[in-house]
């Protein structure tokens, strides 16, 4: 039974708020690093939602499948962040110190 008072709701709502905040941050980012940072926060917000889903039955065992998916997601996120940062830095050095 899922009660409105089960704690996982707090994390589900928090993930929605964080997603919205990072979306706003992404659109309003002044430079490339800020955009990459916003994407990372967005990703972790979505992962938090998965976590809340894995715990939707608070009195039973957690669902291991969303947790496995999130671990995969975290690793893929760090890979894309590394490539994005390398690209941004190479671009910055090529443009002689200007990134948009």
């Amino acid at each position, binding site marked *: 039974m*899922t009660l409105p008072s089960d*704690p996982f709701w*707090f*994390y*589900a*709502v*928090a993930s*929605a*708020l*964080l*997603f*919205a*905040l990072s979306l*706003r941050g992404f*659109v309003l*980012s*002044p*430079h490339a*690093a*800020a955009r*990459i*940072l916003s994407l*990372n*926060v967005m990703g972790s917000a979505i*992962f*938090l*939602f998965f*976590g*809340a*889903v*894995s*715990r*939707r*039955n608070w009195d*039973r065992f*957690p669902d*291991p*499948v969303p*947790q*496995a998916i999130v*671990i*995969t997601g*975290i*690793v*893929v*996120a*760090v*890979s894309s962040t*590394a*490539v994005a*940062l*390398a690209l*941004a*830095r*190479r671009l*910055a*050095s090529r*443009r002689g110190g200007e*990134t*948009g």
Partner: protein
Amino acid sequence: MLEGAFDLVLASFLVALGRSALQFEDLFRAVVLYIAYGLLMALAWSRLSAPDVALAEAAIGAGVTGALFLDAARDLKRAAKERKPRVGWRFAISLLGAVVAAGISLALIGILPESAESEGLTARVGQSLSEAGVSQPVTAVIMNFRSFDTWLELLVLLVAMSSSLVFHRTFRLHTLRSSWPHSSGPEPVLAALANVLTPCALAAGAYLVFRGSSGPGGAFQGGALLGAAGVLSLLRGRGELFRLRQRFFLSTAVAGVVAFLVFSLGTGLVGRAVLEYPPGLAGTLLLALEVASAVSIGVTLSVLFAAARPSG
């Protein structure tokens, strides 16, 4: 009651910290707050009964990502061209964000209680756990039931590593010494800390890989710690870990993908379904695959950190 209050406070702090991390006026401050946000997120994962994810988030999400950002913040902050939109646009975007948040929250309230009645795949995992070769369900899902996804994930890591190396003109694992502001090399505190922490990280990483069979841990968490040891060694400036020839070191990054390939060919040749573990050897084979994956993850994360630095 008390339990819920703690989660409410934690979730609120998480949102507040995320909001602070998204203030981009000072990039360094934003990155540091992002690392703190990642660690608080790890705490939230623990509250959600997901210790494996908490370990992965702390090590990879906060640790490696934070290190990558701190390294890049120096160069990118200097190069940033300020592009602040007008006040009207900012308000409109904030309004859009609020609408998105409200919409998602309403959708959650509508969908989650219904889907909560379904057990999902928990029951299926529980039934098959005895033949999985490990007793930790998350590790069983990653390395056994969804091992194909893990194989492809290791391939993604390899692609990311190759891409980072392509952007680097002359890649040498020992170039970090030249990027220190003082010519005398790394600061003594960093050097001493790296001397102590590198072997600790190596030992803890190896332990986590083996622990994953019966408790929280596994290839990714252990591999992240091995990667942290590699990054510390690089920061130390001496590249002690990398006395090995560079080509040999880079080629160990394919260990995980190759191990899965060999395993899939083996199971195919023996007549079973591809990637299906033989019943008696499941535990041993899984552990072998985990060790290979952890090695390649550690090497890849170290190289990702090193290759993100500008050349020369």
